[in-house]
């Protein structure tokens, strides 16, 4: 039997949640362990756990302190969290259309200038990436992606924008993102997708799950407008392929 993995830190997030922290930094291995623990807890639930929230490096576990205490819960979580990782299973892959630049990606030219290259080259590097949904957070459907090309890593804007459009495709630090609703953001806006990662009366309401793979492809602004209408009417407009 494979050796167990180093234990995560169990950090109290108040009296009704515990942060199971695998790393302090963005780390692919840590994220795999987060998603594996999340899956394991979904497959064999521990009585008292009410909800889990996977993030890059930790799993936030909400629980009911009337059903289980902090120490008892920790004792149940640790053996699961230190299990060797299960073999990688097939992930869903989404191909997401993006209208880059112009009014849809107002930072594309500045990003190209800052990185001493052309907007087309930025598009090629961004669309050529193979991403994973590391977590979904902040606002409904906002998918944080790992796997951004190293040449596109750049610090966030000094002055975050108070409002960025729905469907924004952006990069910030070492992360890439698919944003669903209009929201404040300090990231660089490369384009927009007509895809709604969250749409209330659609089945499924939420398109992406942590662990899904994502690639992008460029569309022109006319196609964006067509797909946007279709998406508004409830079509998914992202292509799903098996990885």
């Amino acid at each position, binding site marked *: 039997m494979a050796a167990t993995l180093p234990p995560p830190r169990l*950090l*109290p*997030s*108040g*009296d*009704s*949640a515990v*942060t199971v*922290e695998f790393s*302090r*930094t*963005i780390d692919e291995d840590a994220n795999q362990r987060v998603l594996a623990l*999340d899956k394991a807890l979904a497959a064999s639930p521990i009585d008292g756990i*009410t*909800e*889990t*929230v*996977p*993030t*890059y*490096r*930790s799993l*936030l576990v*909400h629980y009911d*302190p*009337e059903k289980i*205490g*902090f120490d008892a819960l920790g004792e149940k979580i640790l053996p699961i969290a230190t299990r060797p990782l299960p073999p990688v299973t097939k992930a869903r892959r989404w191909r997401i259309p993006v209208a880059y630049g112009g009014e849809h990606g107002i930072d594309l030219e500045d990003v190209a200038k800052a990185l001493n290259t052309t907007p087309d080259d930025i598009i090629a590097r961004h669309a050529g990436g193979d991403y994973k949904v590391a*977590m*979904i*957070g*902040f*606002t*409904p*459907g*906002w998918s*944080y992606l790992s796997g951004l090309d190293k040449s596109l890593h750049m610090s966030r804007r000094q002055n975050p924008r108070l409002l960025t459009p729905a469907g924004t495709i952006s990069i910030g630090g070492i992360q890439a993102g698919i944003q669903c*609703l209009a*929201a404040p953001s300090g990231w660089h806006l490369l384009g927009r997708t007509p895809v709604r990662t*969250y749409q*209330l009366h659609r089945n499924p*309401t*939420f398109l992406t799950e*942590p662990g899904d793979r994502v690639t992008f492809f460029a569309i022109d602004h006319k196609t964006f407008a067509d797909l946007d209408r279709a998406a508004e009417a409830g079509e998914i407009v992202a292509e799903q392929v098996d990885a």
Partner: protein
Amino acid sequence: MSRLVVASIGPASSVQDGGRFGAQRYGLTVSGAMDRLSLAAANTLVGNEPFAAAVEIGPFGASFTARDGAVRIAISGAPRNADIAGTPVAMDTSVTLKDGETLTLGFARGGAFTYLAIEGGIKGELVFGSLAVNARAGLGSPYPRPLQAGDEFSVDAASGTPERRIELPKPATGPIRVLLGPQDDEFDEANKALFLNSEWKISATSDRMGYRLEGPAIKHLHGHNIVSDGTVNGSIQVPGNGAPIALMMDRGTSGGYPKIATVITADVGRLAQTSAGTAFRFKAVSMAEAQDEARKFARLIRSLPDRLRSSDTVALNIAALSDANVAGYAVSAVDAGTWQVTAEP
């Protein structure tokens, strides 16, 4: 069916219930009542489940008119003057509005949120099990936004059940209790002590998403950028400027600032009901004490039906009347979207 019509209402008033759970992993926050005990008390008074949807009324005044029949309601939470055609209505009691009668509520006298529960509850379309308004995500029912004058609820006709009052425990005073963490190790001992030993005030630019705290600047050990991780109601994060923010019910589900401490479940409603400008302190407690208090709080909510009393002994609310001569109130000029008010000297 009767209708309850919103005749007038201030900002920061919306339909709220126990909250929307199960989709935080998709970035959908919980929303729900800022003061769960007061929501539960108001609902219990009219025979509803404790966390049924009710009207959460912000610090300003409001009035509601019954149409097409009588409507039985109850109010609990931040105290305010209330009357029906000049006859005072006490807090923490139920009352029936006859067809055409109007309940008028004044400004909150201390605290911020008052809950108006309606017998039979508010009818609407549940999303993830909740009617709670989350204005940023466009969720909530029957109105996915703060309430406006002219809005109306289709409600059950009043049952004629005798009116009740509810005996609530004396509101706790003293510091707001916190558990340190999850990222208290991002702060040195001196800054943790500064957080725990200082007087704080809630900024006028606070809202249902977060309460900004005014006091000394808290310094981080390693800078303010951590990798985003999950938040809970009551997470106290410290951004780059050192001014802590207590995350409330409309918080982002994840955040990238170190969280020095977390308000205990039993005290989140107390913090929510702390008026802007009122000085208060935090106090660190142990996990054992925090969980004990959380269990006590849950038992208190369950015990509310046992705390109902016949209401015919209730005379005029003398305290309310004597407090009625409140100084003028001013809205925050900083941000028209926020609800906090400050009493002018």
